[in-house]
């Protein structure tokens, strides 16, 4: 996979974020997310909020929505586990829409973090959060705006899980 293909994957995900009407993106990096986060940081149409721990991102996202914006949080699935209380007692208890764009470590094509991969979808299901796994970057471009619409219509967070098939930078 060449550098151009890599940029295209992240760019397609960014296009999906913009088409979703997202205004603010809170991020905490996984190495597979760095191209996407760099694009978010450079894009004048988005407010980028770098985080130090993912749980604060759920609070920031809730505030952004209550103030009239549309929030997304870009994080790894380890970080998603850090957010479980905030998702439950802020996002879901107050019924606040937000997009969770989660790097799916431990999924097909990965060589590590298998325990994280095993629990990711069961945890989301237990929290009552619907999730989608795009098949490639073009599919992510199509799904992300639809996920944002579902989130706004259902007043719930919606997760889109990004695998190595979507962001191919480190494909072996």
């Amino acid at each position, binding site marked *: 996979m060449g550098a151009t293909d890599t940029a295209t994957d992240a760019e397609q995900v960014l296009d999906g974020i913009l088409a979703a009407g997202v*205004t*603010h993106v809170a991020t905490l990096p996984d190495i597979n997310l760095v191209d996407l986060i760099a694009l978010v940081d450079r894009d004048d149409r988005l*407010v980028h*909020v*770098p*985080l*130090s*721990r993912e*749980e*604060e*991102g*759920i*609070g*920031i*996202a*809730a*505030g*952004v*929505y*209550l*103030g*009239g*914006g549309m*929030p997304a949080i870009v994080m790894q699935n380890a970080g998603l586990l850090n957010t479980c*209380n*905030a998702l439950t*007692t*802020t996002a879901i*208890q*107050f*019924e*606040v829409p937000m997009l969770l764009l989660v790097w799916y470590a431990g999924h097909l094509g990965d060589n590590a973090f298998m325990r994280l991969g095993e629990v990711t979808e069961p945890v989301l299901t237990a929290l009552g959060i619907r999730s989608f796994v795009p098949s490639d970057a073009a599919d992510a471009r199509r799904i992300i705006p639809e996920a944002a619409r579902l989130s*706004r*219509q259902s007043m719930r967070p919606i997760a889109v899980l990004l695998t190595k098939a979507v962001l191919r930078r480190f494909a072996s």
Partner: protein
Amino acid sequence: MKRYECLDAAAAIVTDQLVVTNNGGASTEWAEVGLPEAHLQVKTLGLCSSIGLGLALALPRRGVIVFDGDGSLLMNLSTLPTIARQRPANLVHVVFDNAVYEASGGTPTQTADGEAGADLAALARAAGIRNVHAVDSVDGFVSAFRSGLDGGGPTFIHARVEAVRKKTKPVPIDEVENKYRLVRYVERTEGISILARPLPASVAGR
């Protein structure tokens, strides 16, 4: 100094600012003296300053006030560098430090023990927050609070208070009603639409 004395003084100063309270005594005490429509009562320990930051970023011309507690801030210390990096001029973050987990039984927090206790104002300064005040009198609080509302923030006010809670009436709304009440107030006062959702095709007549 008692927390509710500061909140009573703040209520006389606050105009159209949005107010976010932590899930402790500040929440029910502010509910008695503040404007209900502008008040979000957070239920996740530690998250009120993050929610306030999100509001301040989404509405950069609107004042946003956070009434936090020591136990709550200690659970989400990463909020301080995150706020500092965003530099929201319209955010005033007040931490009422009573050195105990008051709402859950009075166990000491990490700010207790005098010299050995954590200094929250020093933490805020070290995190890069622009305007940091440490106050231990109502007059000192009012002065710092007024200067924060004038802008130029983010402002952080560390207010040492006694571990005393005012007896308050229960607030008879749930979180979802709290959300709608705040959002409708923001929509009305900002002239924006937040909750507009497309109607189902069967209703819209498509």
